[in-house]
């Protein structure tokens, strides 16, 4: 089911929603897109199309830092009901990252109650990508730059407003709050949307033709386990973990304990496998003592482990890691080099 709203009518909807729950929209801060809370100050300049925001969508669901336990008074923050919130303007790659994280945090035997609660309360309104960057490669992961399922609502910007596609009951309920602001999307409007989508899709496909591989990522990793390419890239990698901290699918965390008042708390923070101490154990041995081990490990985790455990790659092709890398390492090129059995000349 698809509806149409003019830009001003869609604002009207946002305002209605924002009276009841926090709404986060995407806006420019200097040259980059970021999520910001929708308020009277941020009602202008909302970006519905363009490209994913800088921060990964997981930040809303798996917080950078979270108190997960207080003791000895057995108290559980997970019991605290979270309020619903709405995210407007996530992209198809962002949505995919949630499916990937869901496997770890809520499909296992033991579920993470904090993630589950935030997922329950987070309403995701996606939008079509219209301005992929050079670094975008979702199509290599068999994704499209527009979402087809898994959203509550999806927005497609066309010249005169937005097309709203309903993806869930929750999305339908949201729209029912402002029926008077909506009309049925016309065939020509839908055609316009589809044309835009085709243009973006072709662009991403085209720019990634040179990165196409002869075999799946997983096979390549298994085959090239001892390749010298790993060592060459580790010589270049600064181990700053920027790629991991901005990755929408990285889920590693560290737990630490601290005293607070009369009691204690357990806190979890994001952690990154590029750090030397990540795999070190009490006795001092380290499963991955060198940078080379750790770089390779990232690829094993994302392209071998995740595929073997969950049947999907832990990568969305969002390109954040490529943009963030201070050493200009492009994951697509790493794979090309692995395939060729050597590193490229531009190192």
């Amino acid at each position: 089911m698809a509806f149409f709203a003019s830009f001003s009518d869609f604002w009207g909807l946002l305002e209605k929603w924002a009276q009841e729950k926090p709404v986060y929209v995407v806006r420019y801060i200097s040259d980059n897109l970021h999520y910001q809370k929708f308020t009277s100050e941020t009602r202008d300049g909302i970006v519905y199309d363009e490209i994913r925001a800088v921060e990964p969508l997981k930040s809303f669901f798996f917080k950078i830092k979270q108190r997960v336990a207080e003791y000895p008074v057995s108290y559980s923050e997970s019991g605290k009901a979270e309020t619903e919130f709405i995210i407007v303007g996530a992209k198809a790659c962002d949505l995919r990252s949630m499916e990937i994280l869901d496997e770890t945090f809520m499909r296992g035997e033991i579920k993470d109650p904090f993630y589950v609660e935030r997922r329950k309360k987070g309403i995701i309104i996606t939008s079509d990508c219209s301005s992929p960057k050079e670094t975008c490669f979702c199509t290599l992961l068999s994704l499209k730059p527009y979402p087809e399922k898994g959203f509550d609502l999806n927005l497609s910007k066309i010249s005169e407003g937005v097309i709203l596609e309903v993806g869930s009951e929750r999305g339908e309920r949201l729209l029912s709050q402002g029926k008077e602001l909506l009309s049925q999307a016309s065939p020509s409007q839908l055609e316009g949307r589809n044309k835009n989508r085709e243009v973006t899709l072709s662009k991403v496909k085209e720019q990634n033709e040179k990165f196409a591989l002869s075999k799946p990522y997983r096979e390549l990793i298994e085959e090239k386990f001892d390749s010298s390419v790993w060592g060459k890239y580790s010589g270049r990698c600064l181990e700053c973990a920027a790629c991991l901290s901005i990755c929408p699918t990285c889920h590693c965390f560290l737990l630490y304990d601290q005293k607070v008042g009369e009691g204690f708390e357990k806190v979890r923070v994001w952690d990154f496998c590029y750090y030397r101490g990540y795999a070190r154990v009490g006795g001092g041995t380290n499963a991955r003592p060198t940078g080379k081990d750790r770089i390779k490990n990232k690829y094993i985790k994302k392209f071998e482990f995740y595929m073997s455990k969950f049947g999907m790659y832990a990568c969305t092709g969002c390109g954040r890691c490529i943009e963030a890398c201070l050493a200009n390492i492009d994951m697509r090129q790493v794979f090309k080099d692995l395939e060729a059995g050597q590193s490229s000349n531009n190192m």
Partner: protein
Amino acid sequence: MENPYVPIEAVIKDVIVENPIIKTFVLKPEEPLKFSPGQFIMLTVPGVGESPFTPSSSCFETERVEVTVLRQSGGKVTSALHGMKPGDMVGVRGPFGHGYPLERFKGNEVYVVGGGVGMAPMRALMFALLHEADQYKHIILRYGARNPELRMYKELCKSWETDPRVDVVYTVDIADETWTHNVGVVTTIMKPEDIQDVKNAFSIGCGPPIMLRFMVPVLLKMGFAEEHMFFSLEKNMSCGMGLCGHCRIGNLYVCKDGADFSYDKIKDFPDVWA
């Protein structure tokens, strides 16, 4: 939804000094702790941190759980633990992992090899095996320590020497004048004649990574099947639930998929013994 990060309280009832660097803590958890041998718990020292340990006591005693702890140089949690006294409080989460497949062992020879503080989980396993000793064809224990002083559970080990249900051989790397058993690393007391029906026998090894690494060729030479050679891996388990990522090697989470693995499952990972 239950919060798996919240530890339950456990009172330290007793502290047994095994040797200058190893102590056994007798814990009374606020609710009975059911576990099977080989499963591990996350032990929290309040405000200091949390580390994984495998109970060394019998799984049939759920209200009195023992944890044997080696004080690691520079180890925040183990150092703090070693400073704790009866009456002090710790936190416990778990158990995690799936423990040893005792049902598969039944009817066969079980070859238990412990080295150093790795004897701690092996003690829990021995208790479980001996609890229904008639279910197993033969229970064999090989235990090595660096020197006689660093051996643990000395009384218990002595009692096993005369226990007809179990065949034990002990060794130390470096002997002193009191030592009457073997001298040499633990692989030197692993002999083909220890086992009659090696194709169906199971081995379980726990000890420092280097010991496990050297056990592999010895076990293979003895004729053990790779699928029957179990090893307890020590990795950086933190959450215990397959969420935090730290203990992963290859396509396994050591916490959730182990912490005990048969050799065929782990042999291809280059970081397995690191």
